[in-house]
């Protein structure tokens, strides 16, 4: 999920203008870019992706496995080599035995492969 990364002060300013849901992680607030579509921000803030971190063992449990019909988990590594999955995979997972996915927490994700114009 692409989000705007806000300080507490920026979040308060934005809350005085619009209503929205925000996620609080390690002292920062994150607001979905999609949710803010059409609501111009009064300041410039970085856009970051939020994903759910998994351990290597957890990654090995799910990689290539089906989470919904014709849909497989696709764990990806961030720039630090840690593994992540998306909220779509968690929310749409209908399989028994994967309840532990709901215990995962969101954190910032910086992709290993940055967009490039080849």
């Amino acid at each position, binding site marked *: *999920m*692409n989000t705007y990364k806000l300080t507490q002060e920026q979040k308060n300013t934005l809350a005085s203008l619009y209503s929205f849901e925000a996620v609080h992680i390690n002292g920062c607030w994150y607001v979905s870019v999609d949710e803010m579509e059409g609501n111009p921000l009064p300041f410039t803030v970085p856009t970051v*992706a939020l*994903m759910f971190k998994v351990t290597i063992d957890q990654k090995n449990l799910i990689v290539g496995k089906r989470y*919904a*019909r*014709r*849909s*497989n*988990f*696709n*764990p*990806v590594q961030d720039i630090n080599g840690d593994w*992540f*999955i*998306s*909220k*779509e*995979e968690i929310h749409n997972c209908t399989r028994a035995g994967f309840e532990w996915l709901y215990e995962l927490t969101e954190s910032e*994700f910086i*992709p290993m*492969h940055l*967009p*490039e*114009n*080849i």
Partner: protein
Amino acid sequence: MKNIVFILLLTSLSANAQRNAGIIAASKDTAFTAFIQPSKANITKDSLLWAAYYFVKMDKGFDLWKKDQAEYPMIGGTSIAHSFNIKNVNQYQIQWSGGVTHSSTGVAGNGTNGMGETYWIPTTNNTHMFLYNRTNNTTGIVMAGLEIPAGVPYQYIVEPNLSGTSRIIAGDNANSVDFVPSSNTGYFSLSRTSSTSLKSYRNAVVQATNTTANSSYTFISSIYLLARNNSGGAINYSTKEINSISLGLGYTDTDMTNKYNIYSYINSILVR
């Protein structure tokens, strides 16, 4: 003239056909009946049945069918319905991976790990790639494969907006037909009908042509949706929403116009 009469006939039938979905479902067209069956796309709603029926009949009526190899109208709103190739449900079924969102308007990537593998590989000098992009942003690439043989990038890309430019390539970088689109939404496509004829289109209007001789390099990677297949690994994940995917052999300008008209009509009745 024959085509115009054909369009008018089928369009005039639409109202009745939607009221009589049972008749459509009883069609003897094997491609249509295979696609809608419960074990495949499982299409039951009248408007969706009509869309699938209209697509097959019109595609065949315009002789596009023989040039199409993988055709994903993306109707049904689910991962399974969107995975099937209506041309042949037993070929090129999309495998979705990571975070993608399916809805009545198509399939959208999440920009971090969501994509679809088509298993379809372009033919070097006889190829078309076509899609409808609903999202106005510059994140990622919606349809592409990339290989770097002998250090030279060789790729097939249809990307409505990559940093402000529609990036369209079928070959090495000398074989691009990029253009700056008037809008980032719409029907974007490429067609290569020979080693010296490559064109890009938006809404079936030619945007750029390239007559540079293409190499005879044989591509071996399949085309990914909502990301770029980098010799088997996905990069450049997109957040755009797409539908109306067509992959196959090279189209003429008339073919491209006919395909555009077919999907424009379908997407208008599906309100997307």
